[in-house]
């Protein structure tokens, strides 16, 4: 009994000061699992609101924003204590969001309402609501903060939002069920994944012209089950890792030639991912198997599977 208490005390003591971490939201457990990047073990499990999905840190990592979808709110957590500091008005059913480079405005996709809500995290007020297509999900912001993208799953579009006027200035059709969007760091390209279409479309930001469409072929998996969802660029932007959902693979794509270079086997229904702060490891959330796969970025190999909660969804690194 005493030794257990000692262990608990030492855990409580060690956890907050430990090194880099990966935070993972567990959609069907209403928790966050915190993985220590050194030991590759879950060191904390923190309760959240209902159905946590998108998660992201403030620029100084002093706040964690959580889309608590079924609580219809964005929660603000102190990552040191795990305490919920307050809730932000988010519109109904917030699924995913992106934090503007100004570290202040959250752009939130309201999945059930076909709306993108813009919230000021300081005043805690909604400053705009923008009508978008049905089931908005993917959110991205350009590095200069001038453009925000919302993708809508059933409307099959990427909506280009001017952040000054908070209004849509262009719409680009993509293949079925767009799920995720990312700008390249220089801001010249926008990438959008289409889950049911099985493709990733690359747009030139300047004129929203389509410059490439990437297709995937996983050996032994029917094409219908190869469903691209979340993806991340490497630090040098030479490569993109793309989660392929129920095919249980992550594709490694050359970001310059748009060619698929490799496929890495991970857990079941791989969804989103994030890099360790030093960018040497990649952590993928595997919804159906309820675990996280750790990929060695240089070797392009899966090196460990870590059990987390039920239906891990989002991932965010904290140095």
């Amino acid at each position, binding site marked *: 009994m005493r030794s257990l208490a000692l262990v608990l005390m030492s855990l409580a003591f060690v956890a907050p000061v430990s090194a880099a971490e990966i935070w993972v939201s567990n959609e069907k457990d209403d928790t966050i699992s915190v993985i220590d990047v050194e030991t590759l073990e879950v060191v904390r499990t923190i309760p959240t609101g209902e159905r946590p999905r998108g998660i992201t840190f403030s620029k100084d990592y002093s706040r964690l924003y959580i889309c608590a979808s079924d609580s219809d709110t964005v929660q603000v957590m102190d990552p040191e204590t795990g305490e919920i500091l307050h809730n932000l008005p988010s519109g109904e059913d917030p699924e995913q969001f992106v934090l503007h480079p100004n570290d202040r405005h959250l752009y939130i996709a309201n999945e059930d309402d076909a709306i993108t809500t813009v919230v000021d995290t300081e005043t805690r007020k909604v400053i705009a609501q923008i*009508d978008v*297509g049905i089931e908005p999900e993917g959110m991205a912001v350009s590095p200069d903060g001038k453009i925000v993208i919302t993708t809508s799953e059933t409307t*099959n579009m990427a909506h280009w939002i001017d952040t000054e006027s908070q209004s849509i200035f*262009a*719409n*680009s059709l993509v293949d079925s069920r767009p799920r995720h969007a990312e700008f390249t760091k220089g801001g010249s390209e926008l990438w959008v994944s289409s889950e049911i*279409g099985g493709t990733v479309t690359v747009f030139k930001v300047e004129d929203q012209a389509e410059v490439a469409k990437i297709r995937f072929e996983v050996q032994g998996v029917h094409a*219908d089950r190869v469903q691209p969802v979340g993806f991340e660029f490497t630090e040098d932007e030479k490569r993109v890792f793309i989660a392929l959902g*129920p095919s249980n693979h992550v594709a490694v794509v050359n970001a310059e030639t748009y060619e698929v270079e490799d496929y890495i086997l991970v857990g079941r229904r791989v969804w989103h991912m994030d890099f360790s702060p030093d960018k040497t490891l990649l952590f993928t959330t595997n919804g159906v198997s309820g675990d996280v796969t750790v990929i060695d970025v240089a070797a392009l190999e899966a090196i460990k599977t870590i059990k987390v909660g039920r239906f891990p969804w989002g991932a965010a690194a904290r140095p």
Partner: protein
Amino acid sequence: MIRALSLSAIMMLVAAVTIAPAALAQVEIRIAFVEQQIDPPPTLSNLDPLPDDLGRAGAELGLEDNATTGRFLGHNYALTVHSAGSGEDFLVAARQALSETALLVVKAPAEALLALADLPEAADALIFNTSEQATRLRAADCRANLLHSITSYAMRADALAQFMSKKRWTDWALIEGVHPDDAAFAEALRASAGKFGLRIADEKAWVFDADMRRNAAQEVPLFTQALEDHDVLVVADELGDFGRYLLYNTWEPRPVAGSEGVAPRAWSGVVEQWGAAQLQSRFADLAGRRMLSEDYAAWAALRSLGEAVTRTGSADPAALRAYILSDAFELAGFKGRPMNYRGWNGQLRQPVPLVHPRALVALAPLEGFLHQRSELDTLGLDEPESACRAFEE
């Protein structure tokens, strides 16, 4: 040659839409929902009355979904409803709809559907069957202007047979009701059992006229006691008349499947995977009830039209039909994989959920049932089996 030309024209349109999304050319799309209302025959239980807006509510949701997308493209959708009451002439409603638009979404029995499709003024129309499961409409009685967004009896029976095969419930006892729909489903079940190497060990017709609500516990054990050895009791009771009283009252402890128990359906309120929870909640907000198969089929018909309009920028029925039947078409139907139409009989290829009232049990096609073209073609009439020739041009 003509087909090749029209396809390349479509491709050009697609390119135009993709490259210049901001250039809005206004397109007006008018769709008619045409229905023949039928007084359902009486059933023993009144627990689950058929909703008055069955099908129509799905069409309305499809319209809303299309309109949201159309708003960004300058595509304006309108839906009108033409309803023939029970005993009224369906063709009067159908002709009125055809005088307004050539895009029809229809809920009507086989004979009414064929009469509509064969009207001279319907020759260039594009008609979606959203309710009739008769396999013959996908075979010898197919029509080039008639597509099917509802599953056929054959697709549902094949889905169940795949599940049984996987479970190794190889020996069936089949109980068949007296309604023509029961006979049609039973016939499909017999064919599926043969197709997947399963055995119908025994068959019985349900001929009781007693009120099973009070005496199922006395009658059903006796009724099932005489059946040859079987792994599963398969029920063809498409109206939901007696099947519900079989569960847990059988002589041997056997699972029930078919119209009751584990049931193959085009859709069910318990489907929550593959993003379906969003579709279910949109439907519940609109209709105040759960989404059923006919609602789903009408929604899928509207969305098929919407998808074709979005990608082609056209409201011309011939252009839409060509695009819908092309390889480029794909519909995200919340069943885990893209859906499209069979080029040989106009049937929407789709997974079939196997459900009980509280949860999804499995989704057919099940793993391991392979096909050279699409695993979805392991369900229903495949190209070599189909006697449909109307789609050959």
